[in-house]
């Protein structure tokens, strides 16, 4: 078997993810903890914040997330790689260096990776459709190389904006892999497997009913869920597992589901560095909560880089709910839903949804049928609104049901959401130069 190239831990799978799993991984002695904190749309609030203030635009959880992690990482010699730089990696790196000083950690080298923001080159992007409205921003997905270069130059922390999630992991492995595309494809595959943190170790996972299979995790196990680590071998294969003693579940099923998660064609998964082929992947259980992964193949570099553009459609989606409880709640809710649709008759069917939370608002026609009366329900209205005044009308009509609708309308709540759409595009690699900007504590 090939040598161990590096041990990677997945300390966060989205911006709001738990803080403690990363600290557990660093204590367990991984070579690097990766913090994936930048979903497609997480960039939008970051871009708005940067527009308000030039030193803002990185993940506002930066200090809370890194305060417990930096001292452990320093003590254990564990690198940190994260996209929590969001729309402003340089400001994030400066803040991390300052945090290092505040924590008494002198000499911390923090590298910011710059170059993903291609909003000044939006005309060179081949969009899948016309944006049709002003772009809030345009960011290319960077690959692993600038991050790996920063690590090779001694970075303790690498902070980025938009980078392929799997590249955050592959960057740590790059210089320790056997030469050639196959090993790098393997590391990218490992990164893809790990990038959602607890979703690989039993989170968001319902074991199928049937004898002989482990039961779902308990409340205590979900509450203390260990996040995954991977021993990446120099040939790009890996052993997936949990930190010692951490609760969770890693088996061929949890790994298979996560490998396929948010992938289109599993035999051609395009990442900035390589198009990888997952169709030959094998997962073998080699111990309790230990799975060996092998068989990721490369199909060569992709012709272009993917770009995510953000389109700010005018107006809002107004999302309101009002509850009904007690005997006959369901019948009163049905009547209220019909009355609300009548009151909001100016909205075309395609621009409004009126349904019952608790009876089928999530899966709609695909919901399980109701069996027997339920003690309470919520009537839900979501409507596309061209401006704030229209949104206020929707909210007011829901509230008016407390006085002028079926008895007992209560517990009203509402949320006004901006209408942001993500638009995919493609740009030539050479249009996206990158740069490393250093900060030090």
């Amino acid at each position: 078997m090939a040598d161990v190239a590096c041990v990677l831990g997945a300390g966060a799978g989205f911006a709001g993810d738990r803080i403690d799993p990363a600290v557990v991984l660093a204590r367990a002695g991984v070579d690097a903890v990766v913090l994936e904190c930048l979903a497609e749309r997480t960039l939008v609030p970051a871009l708005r914040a940067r527009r308000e203030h030039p030193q803002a635009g990185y993940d506002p959880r930066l200090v809370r997330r890194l305060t417990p992690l930096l001292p452990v990482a320093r003590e254990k010699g564990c690198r940190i790689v994260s996209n929590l730089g969001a729309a402003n990696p340089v400001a994030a790196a400066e803040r991390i260096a300052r945090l290092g000083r505040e924590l008494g950690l002198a000499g911390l080298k923090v590298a910011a990776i710059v170059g993903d923001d291609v909003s000044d080159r939006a005309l060179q992007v081949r969009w899948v459709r016309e944006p049709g409205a002003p772009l809030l921003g345009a960011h290319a997905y960077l690959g692993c190389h600038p991050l790996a270069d920063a690590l090779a130059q001694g970075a303790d922390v690498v902070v980025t904006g938009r980078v392929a999630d799997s590249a955050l992991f592959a960057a740590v492995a790059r210089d320790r892999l056997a030469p050639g595309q196959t090993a790098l494809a393997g590391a990218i595959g490992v990164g893809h497997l790990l990038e959602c943190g607890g979703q690989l170790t039993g989170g968001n996972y319902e074991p199928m009913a049937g004898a002989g299979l482990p039961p779902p995790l308990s409340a205590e196990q979900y509450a203390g869920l260990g996040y995954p680590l991977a021993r990446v071998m120099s040939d790009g294969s890996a052993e997936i597992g949990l930190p010692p003693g951490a609760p969770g579940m890693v088996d061929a099923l949890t790994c298979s589901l996560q490998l396929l998660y948010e992938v289109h064609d599993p035999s051609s998964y395009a990442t900035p560095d390589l198009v990888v082929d997952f169709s030959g992947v094998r997962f073998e259980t080699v111990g309790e909560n230990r799975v060996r992964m092998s068989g990721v193949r490369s199909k060569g570099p992709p012709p272009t880089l993917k770009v995510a553009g953000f389109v700010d459609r005018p107006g809002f989606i107004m999302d309101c709910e009002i509850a009904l409880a007690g005997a006959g709640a369901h019948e009163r809710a049905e009547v209220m839903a019909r009355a609300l649709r009548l009151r909001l008759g100016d909205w075309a069917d395609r621009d409004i949804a009126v349904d019952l939370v608790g009876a089928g608002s999530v899966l709609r026609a695909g919901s399980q049928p109701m069996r027997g009366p339920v003690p309470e329900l919520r009537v839900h209205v979501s409507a596309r609104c061209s401006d704030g005044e229209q949104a206020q009308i929707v909210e007011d009509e829901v509230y008016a049901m407390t006085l002028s609708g079926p008895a007992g309308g209560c517990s009203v709540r509402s949320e006004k959401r901006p209408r942001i759409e993500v638009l995919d595009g493609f740009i030539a690699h050479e249009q996206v130069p990158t740069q490393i900007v250093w900060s030090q504590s």
Partner: protein
Amino acid sequence: MRVGDIAAGRAGDKGDMLDLSLVARDQAAYDMLCKVLTPERLQPLMNRVVPGPVLRYEIPGLRALKFVLPRALPGGVYASLHPGLHWQKAAIWLLLDLSIADDGQRLLAPSDGLGPFT
């Protein structure tokens, strides 16, 4: 039998795309799912909830089926008229709750009165 008795699943999304993955518990279950969960059979059911075509990828080495609905979430997560955000995390139950006839040869129809779409 319920699809969720013989397979585990997970839903994901990227932009307008909804993706649904199923991993069968053994080879017999995989063969059965391949036979009954055809895009032609699923698309009319799915189109009662989300628009657009249903594509299927087979990954026999993992005993997995991958369903991709490229236009199911028009405008992406923030354009949804569902309550709150990310309803599609539950969309895998559109498949898990389907029922297969005892002979393993076909999906039960909604008119059989079982599960969703009835």
